[in-house]
């Protein structure tokens, strides 16, 4: 419906002492679904509110389809927003809640409005609730009404601010699918804020990661997962999160070894790897994801490392094996690998799964400046 462009968008609070959003550039294609993630306080909500027109940017612009809407009042933007706490009008019935936007922004007759609301409600499976007040509804039903209300207006841009965070796991999965389906069906451009890993990974066409008001990386979820541009993104995306280890690399240009005194790690890199990557000696931060770590219950000594098991958490399909390699070092292994706490086990991983970050800047050491800059465009 509309392409959304944020151009060096900036928002300061408290006379510039808090920079909530720091010169953000982002373009969302017509009909695209972008999820925005980041830790608490990173500026997600503020960004969304600026797109909706609820917050005035300190500088920068918001455009819909090349039209600058920065100075246009919220009520005139073709935007619908689903709030974290739903913000259903408690004194109106579900029907009135859903019809309200239509009443305000179209000149439909009451009947047309009610017809539209009925259609919407049928689609969302809440046609029986139309005469109820919000506080008679369960969380999931409220969520559906909030969605219905947003969709009923047929907006060009859809904004979601952690819409599922108040729901329980089961409902969350259900609603996730529902939102995606609706968004595709209507072809509406969507921005979706969340701090839930699974939502972030599964819902969007693209994923935007914010930290401290700054955009860190934008890209397809798998792309971001596989090639995080910096330590922050690497640690933030993926659950359980990536293990980090402070290591030293010794290289002579053709061979290289990754060492960590504390855990006794000494991992030789292959010649191919060294040849393919531009590596220097020095301190690095090594990152490796739990699912890329193999646990060998009866270590033969050929493994990369041996370590002691601290705790084993079975989660049904898999086990989380906590190892004493470093603090919070976790391996995810199949359910049939079941060491006991205290066991000595072997630890393996593949050099292809390793990430190396600059301990100072946190950036992936193999990326060039350009590549890093490109990651946010």
């Amino acid at each position: 419906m509309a392409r959304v462009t944020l151009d060096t968008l900036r928002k300061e609070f408290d006379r510039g002492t808090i920079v909530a959003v720091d010169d953000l550039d982002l373009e969302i294609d017509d009909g695209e679904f972008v999820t925005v993630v980041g830790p608490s306080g990173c500026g997600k909500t503020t960004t969304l509110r600026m797109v909706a027109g609820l917050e005035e940017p300190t500088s920068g612009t918001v455009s819909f389809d090349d039209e600058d809407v920065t100075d246009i009042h919220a009520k005139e933007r073709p935007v619908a927003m689903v709030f974290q706490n739903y913000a259903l009008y408690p004194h109106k019935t579900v029907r009135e809640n859903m019809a309200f936007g239509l009443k305000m922004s179209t000149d439909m007759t009451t009947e047309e409005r009610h017809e539209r609301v009925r259609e919407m409600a049928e689609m969302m499976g809440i046609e029986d609730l139309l005469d109820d007040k919000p506080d008679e509804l369960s969380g999931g039903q409220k969520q559906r009404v909030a969605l219905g209300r947003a969709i009923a207006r047929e907006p060009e841009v859809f904004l979601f601010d952690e819409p599922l965070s108040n729901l329980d796991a089961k409902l969350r999965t259900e609603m996730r699918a529902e939102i995606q389906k609706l968004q595709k069906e209507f072809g509406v451009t969507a921005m979706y804020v969340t701090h839930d890993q699974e939502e972030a990974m599964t819902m969007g066409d693209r994923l935007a990661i914010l930290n401290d008001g700054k955009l860190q990386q934008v890209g397809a979820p798998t792309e971001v997962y596989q090639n995080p541009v910096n330590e922050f993104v690497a640690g933030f995306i993926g659950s359980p999160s990536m293990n980090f280890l402070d290591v030293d690399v010794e290289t002579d240009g053709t061979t290289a070894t990754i060492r960590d005194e504390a855990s006794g790690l000494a991992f030789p890199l292959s010649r191919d790897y060294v040849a393919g990557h531009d590596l220097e000696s020095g301190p690095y931060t090594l990152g490796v994801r739990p699912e890329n770590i193999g646990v060998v219950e009866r270590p033969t000594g050929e493994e990369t490392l041996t370590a002691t098991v601290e705790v084993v958490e079975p989660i049904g399909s898999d086990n989380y094996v906590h190892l004493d390699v470093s603090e919070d070092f976790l391996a995810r292994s199949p359910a049939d690998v079941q060491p006991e706490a205290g066991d000595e086990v072997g630890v393996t991983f593949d050099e292809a799964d390793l990430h190396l970050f600059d301990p100072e800047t946190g950036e992936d050491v193999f990326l060039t400046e350009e590549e890093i800059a490109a990651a946010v465009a």
Partner: protein
Amino acid sequence: MNPLESAVALVAGAVGLVRSKLIGLATAPKRFVVVIQRAVYDVRTGKRSAWDVAKSVLMTLFGLAMVLVLLFPLFWITTASLAEGSRLFNTSGIFPDPSTYNLGAYRWVIFESDFFFVDGDWGYPQLVLGGGDGLVSFRWAGTETGPGAVFNSLYIVSVTLAAGFGMIVPAAYAFSRRKFVGRKRILYGYVLFTQIGAGLSIATLVALYSLFSTYGLTNNLFVLGLFYAASAIPFNTWLLKTYMDNIPVSYEEAAMVDGASFLDTIREVILPLTKPGLAVVLIFVWLAGWNEFIIAQTLLRPENYPLSVELYNIATEGRFSTPWTRFAAFANLFALPVAIVYFAAQRSVEDGLSFGGMEG
């Protein structure tokens, strides 16, 4: 909504409230019986111990006794309004002899005092076609003396309510939601002045009178209504602001995103959500205009006296004494409707006056 509609809605709301409360009160004995039956059943089947039930009974009786003690003055004066003669005391006991109870005093209030019509000469409203300044004009027919104090009171109160609400609601909203130059200072000033009310009026009585008479505003019901509104502004603005602070901003934002204009948002979202707060403000502003008599007596001439002044005049009518039965009957007719609405609005009042979020 035009003013007439809102007035009708207001009255209808109050009537509904009173009705439901009274129905609740009327069915209370039935519910009470059910409670007792259950308690008996529970004791018999061993679900509750007798001591447990007894504790509840004792507490309830204690509560009831306390209510009776607290309301004793009102009960006592009501019996006095039914008594014979005009004296408050009788040498035989606290209450007048029940066999002498009669409604004479009330008859006097209705048919002889200036309560409804001057000298109790009742009339009826009549529409006159083709009147002087309009197609239809309105007059009282069937009365020689004209309408009485209750109409003056209602007129004053409607001015107070209209002006009070017109200024309190927008201001409370602005204080709660907007930032503007001087906000803090004005609000601070309001809080300081919340309690400078009744006492102040007496203190500044003469200053007020000279102010009013300088501008030729004495004996003007409209201006008096405005004055009461002014006296109600600080406390009620602050009260309503506090109430509005607890309404999440996201409702307004949702409405904005829904395309509602500012006024739409106020009408469709803010006002409905502020209802309990508005109910309390309504009651307080009403009482400000309804009960005051010192200023009214100073500023008004007899033909414009509201009920409160008439009541005071009855209290001081006798050379050295008060005609108690008439006084009590008059006061009861004057205050009871308000007190009943107040009784019925208890829930709203409790909600609207909730300062629970305040940390001491």
